[in-house]
C-alpha cells in the first residue's frame, strides 16, 4: 500500500487556532503523525523581565482567552508563596467560584466544538446557548466575559455581594437542567457513540508515561486532578478526580460531561460556605526565590515556574500548559484511526494553542 502524506492544518475548519499535523496515510488509515506548533509563539514569558511583578498578573491572564482567570490565579499563587502572603479565606472562595465558572464554560465550549466536528450542528448551538448563561454570570460578577481582571497578588479585586451569590445559585439550577439535556444527547445518542466509542484509545500506561494531564489522562484511568492538592478553597471543598478506564474519545467526553456537574456542585458548596471578611492582603516588598506551582485548568494541570531575585521584575517565568503536555498523547492515539476521525481525535484533547503559544 502506497503511503501518502496529508497535511492537516495549520488552517483547518475544525481548528480555531493553528496546529499542523503531517499525517502519513495508507488507504484511509493513519499510520504515522508528526505534529508541529509554533506558528504564533508570542514570547509572553519574556515580558516578565520588563513588567512589574504585580502588573504581570494582567499578562498571565492573557495567555489564554478561555482559562484566563486560572492563569492569573496560578501566577498569583506562586508569587504569594514566594512572598509568604496569606490570602484571606473569602478571596480563596471567590477565586474558586470564578475558576469553576471558567471550567464550566470551557467544557461547554469544547462540547460544542466536538458536536460541530462530527456535524451535529444543533447540539453545537445548544452547548453554546448554555455556555452563554455562564458567561452572563461571569460578566455580572466581574464585568468581563473573557478577561476577568479580578485576581491580584494577595487576593481579588472585587467581591460578590450576597444578593449576586443568591442569583448565581438560582441560575445554577437552570444551567444544570439545561446541561442535563445536552449531556443526555452526548452520552446517549447512537450517532454520537458511533463517532466516539473505541476511537483513539489511549492506555493508562501510555497516558501516564507520556505525561498526559486533565480529562485526557483521567479518561484513561489516571486519577490525577491538581484540585486535590488543596489550593484555594479546595482545602475545604474536597474534589475526587472523575476517572474512566476505556481511554477512548467517548470516555474523554464522559469525563468532561461529569465534570460539568462536579463544578456546579463545587460552586454551590463555595456559595454556601464562603466566609465573610476581607478580600485581599496588602502586599509590600518584592519576591525572592523560585517555585513550581500547579493548578488544574479545564484542560488539565498547568505548571508555572517562577524565579525572582528580590527586585520588581522576575528573572524567569515559564508556563507548561496542559495542551503541550497532551500533544504526545495525540501522536500516540492517531495511528490506526481513520482519516475522517482525525478532526474529532484532535479535538478530544481539547487543544488550546493560544496557551501553548504563550
Amino acid at each position, binding site marked *: 500500500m502506497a503511503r501518502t502524506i496529508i497535511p492537516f492544518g495549520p488552517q483547518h475548519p475544525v481548528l480555531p487556532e493553528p496546529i499542523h499535523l503531517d499525517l502519513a496515510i495508507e488507504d484511509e488509515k493513519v499510520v504515522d503523525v508528526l505534529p*508541529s*506548533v*509554533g*506558528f504564533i*509563539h508570542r*514570547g509572553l*514569558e*519574556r515580558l516578565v*523581565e*520588563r*513588567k512589574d511583578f504585580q502588573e504581570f498578573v494582567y499578562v498571565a491572564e492573557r495567555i489564554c482567552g478561555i482559562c484566563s482567570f486560572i492563569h492569573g490565579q496560578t501566577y498569583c*499563587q*506562586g508569587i*504569594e*508563596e514566594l512572598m*509568604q*502572603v*496569606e*490570602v484571606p479565606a473569602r478571596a480563596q472562595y471567590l477565586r474558586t467560584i470564578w475558576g469553576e465558572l471558567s471550567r464550566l464554560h470551557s467544557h461547554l465550549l469544547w462540547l460544542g466544538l466536538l458536536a460541530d466536528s462530527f456535524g451535529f450542528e444543533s447540539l453545537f448551538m445548544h452547548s453554546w446557548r448554555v455556555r452563554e448563561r455562564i458567561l452572563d454570570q461571569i460578566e455580572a460578577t466581574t464585568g468581563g466575559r473573557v478577561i476577568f481582571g479580578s485576581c491580584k497578588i494577595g487576593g481579588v479585586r472585587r467581591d460578590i455581594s450576597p444578593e449576586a451569590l443568591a442569583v448565581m445559585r438560582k441560575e445554577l439550577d437552570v444551567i444544570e437542567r439545561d446541561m442535563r439535556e445536552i449531556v443526555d444527547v452526548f452520552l446517549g445518542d447512537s450517532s454520537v457513540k458511533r463517532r466516539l466509542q473505541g476511537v483513539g484509545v489511549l492506555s493508562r500506561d501510555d497516558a*501516564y*508515561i*507520556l*505525561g498526559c494531564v486533565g480529562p485526557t489522562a483521567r479518561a484513561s484511568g489516571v486519577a490525577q486532578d*491538581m484540585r*486535590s*492538592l*488543596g*489550593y484555594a478553597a479546595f*482545602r475545604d471543598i474536597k474534589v475526587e478526580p472523575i476517572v474512566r478506564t476505556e481511554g477512548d474519545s467517548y470516555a474523554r467526553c464522559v469525563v468532561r460531561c461529569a465534570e460539568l456537574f462536579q463544578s456546579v456542585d463545587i460552586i454551590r458548596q463555595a456559595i454556601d460556605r464562603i466566609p465573610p471578611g476581607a478580600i485581599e492582603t496588602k502586599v509590600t516588598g518584592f519576591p525572592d526565590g*523560585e*517555585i*513550581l*506551582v*500547579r493548578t488544574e485548568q479545564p484542560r488539565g*494541570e498547568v*505548571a508555572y*515556574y517562577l*524565579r525572582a531575585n528580590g527586585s520588581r*521584575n522576575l*528573572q*524567569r517565568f*515559564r508556563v*507548561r500548559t496542559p495542551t*503541550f*503536555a497532551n*500533544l*504526545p498523547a495525540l501522536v500516540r492515539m492517531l495511528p490506526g484511526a481513520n482519516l475522517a476521525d482525525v478532526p474529532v481525535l484532535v479535538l478530544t484533547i481539547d487543544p488550546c494553542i493560544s496557551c501553548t503559544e504563550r
Partner: protein
Amino acid sequence: MSPDPGSFTAVETAALVAEVRLLRDAGWRLVQIGAAALPTAMEVIYSFDLGGKITNRRVSLPVEGPHRLPSITSVYAAAALYENELHDLFRIQVEGNILDFKGKFYRTTVPFPFASRPSAPALAAKAGTNP
C-alpha cells in the same frame, strides 16, 4: 498558600540521564522541562510528580557555553517536545533527541529569542524606566 512548593536539587550534566531513569523507575511522571537564561548560568529545570508531590532537578550550564545536554527521550519519550523547545528558544543543543525537529519546532522571527538575557540598562530603556 500553595500546599506543594516542591524542592530543587542540582544534578551534573553527566549524571542527568541516570538520575532521571531512577525517577522514572520509581514511578515519577515528567511534568515539564524548562530553561532560564540567568546572568550567572543557563539553568535547565526538570520537574517530576508522584502522587501530587513535586520534585525538580536543576542542571546548570556555564553562561558562556557550550550549552549542551544529553537527551532524556530514551527514558521519557514525552521529553522530545520540551527538548526541541530548549533548542529553538534557548539555543541549547540536546544530543540524542528521538524526535528532533532540527530547529523547526517554533517558527520565531527572532532566532533563539530566549537565549541571552538583556542587560539591566537595555531592559530599562525598553520599559521606559530607570534601571
